[in-house]
């Protein structure tokens, strides 16, 4: 099936599924759960002429007095038209598709009026992005016939714990979070006179995050996040993201985000985005947004063979609408997205078609209902 048609079919399915949530709530009614329930479904489809990326999730949230419960099931689908470099003697063009399923559970417990603890855990099975799928196809075509080659089977899990403190009543919040994740990825391969060597397959990641959310004035709310990440075989990455929402008038809201990341020896990235929301009526909102991203690439030596990504610049412009009526909410967002890579150099020449400039279309839709 053509990539665009498949994306549209999946979109339709995920919009229809939430309509059955009411029946599920009635089925669980016998368990005598009370409180506020919210069911959510979302779908994001991103495509260009040779790649289709789909992310979707179904989620349930419940607040029951001092306790909260979040459940989500996610599904991702990737399809790409693999194209080897012109000089690759083993490469053949091939369409490849994979999917991923994930499950996440989160719990929240209020300790007092101002303190909350959170815990979550999740597991997934499948490829996490199109880049790892492309690289897996490359190594399969190069070394798939050798005895030491093994089929990849990516999966992973994560665990996290957090603490939230309302240090200024209704105006200031601090949240600490620690996260551990284990990921079995599709590894790379190297070959020499001693045979084929399989690269690191299992990655362990520790992440620490501290965030500050503040109501600065009666019109401005801010969120500042600082993140430290330590991953197997990688240097420590530090990242920051600051967000500011400003109610210009009762109908107009401006949103801005500024962020960046640093990782030794030479990787750094920054991005910023803006958005302007207009409340057309009490239930309908229109939004216009833009985004810019730039990084220095992950290549450490341009002359050595590497699958690392070269420097990237990207731009996004989008339009969205949100409709909220009674206990129902719906969002639709459409954007154009452009990725521009720096000339990858001779070391990355085998992946010239992976790191190619592309023009993407993004469509997001989401639906939620409370009971």
């Amino acid at each position, binding site marked *: 099936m053509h990539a665009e048609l498949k994306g549209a079919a999946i979109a339709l399915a995920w919009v229809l599924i939430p309509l059955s949530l009411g029946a599920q709530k009635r089925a669980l009614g016998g368990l005598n759960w009370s409180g506020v329930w919210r069911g959510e479904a979302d779908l994001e489809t991103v495509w260009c002429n040779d790649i289709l990326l789909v992310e979707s999730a179904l*989620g349930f949230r419940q607040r029951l007095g001092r306790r909260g419960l979040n*459940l989500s099931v996610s599904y991702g689908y990737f399809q790409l038209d693999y194209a080897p470099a012109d000089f690759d003697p083993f490469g053949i063009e091939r369409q490849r598709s994979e999917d991923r399923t994930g499950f*996440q559970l989160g719990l929240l417990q209020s300790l007092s009026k101002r303190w909350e603890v959170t815990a979550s855990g999740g597991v997934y099975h499948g490829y996490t992005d199109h880049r790892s799928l492309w690289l897996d196809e490359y190594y399969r075509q190069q070394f798939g016939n050798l005895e030491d080659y093994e089929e990849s089977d990516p999966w992973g899990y994560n665990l*996290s714990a957090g603490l939230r403190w309302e240090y200024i009543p209704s105006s200031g919040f601090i949240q600490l979070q620690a996260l551990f994740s284990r990921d079995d990825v599709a590894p790379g391969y190297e070959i020499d006179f001693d045979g084929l060597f399989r690269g690191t397959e299992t990655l362990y990641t520790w992440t620490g995050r501290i965030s500050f959310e503040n109501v600065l004035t009666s*019109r401005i709310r801010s969120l*500042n996040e600082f993140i430290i*990440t330590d991953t197997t075989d990688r240097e420590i990455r530090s990242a920051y993201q600051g967000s500011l929402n400003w109610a210009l008038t009762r109908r107009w809201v401006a949103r801005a985000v500024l962020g960046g990341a640093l990782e030794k020896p030479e990787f750094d*990235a920054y991005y910023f985005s803006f958005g302007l929301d207009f409340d057309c009526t009490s239930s309908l909102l229109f939004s216009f947004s833009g985004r810019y991203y730039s*990084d220095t690439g992950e290549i450490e030596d341009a002359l050595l063979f590497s699958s690392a990504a070269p420097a990237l610049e990207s731009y996004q412009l989008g339009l969205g609408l949100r409709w909220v009526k009674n206990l129902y909410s719906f969002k639709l967002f459409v954007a154009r997205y452009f990725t521009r890579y720096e000339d990858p150099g001779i070391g990355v020449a085998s992946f010239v078609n992976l790191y190619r400039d592309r023009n993407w279309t993004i469509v997001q839709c989401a639906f939620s209902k409370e009971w």
Partner: protein
Amino acid sequence: MIVMGFAGLVSGCSHVPAYDQAMVSKPNMIFSESPVFDFGSKVLPRIEPGASASGGAQAAGCATCR
């Protein structure tokens, strides 16, 4: 240093009473994780390596982030 200074500047210690928070409590003024109230992308951080908080592969998403 610049980032830390910016963060400190915008965080502040101001107290805005609850009765004066009608405008900052609108759905599009809250930093919500709900996909209906967030125009952020789940896919783009996987294309842009510097926009991803984690250095490892990504899972189903954070269920308890606020």
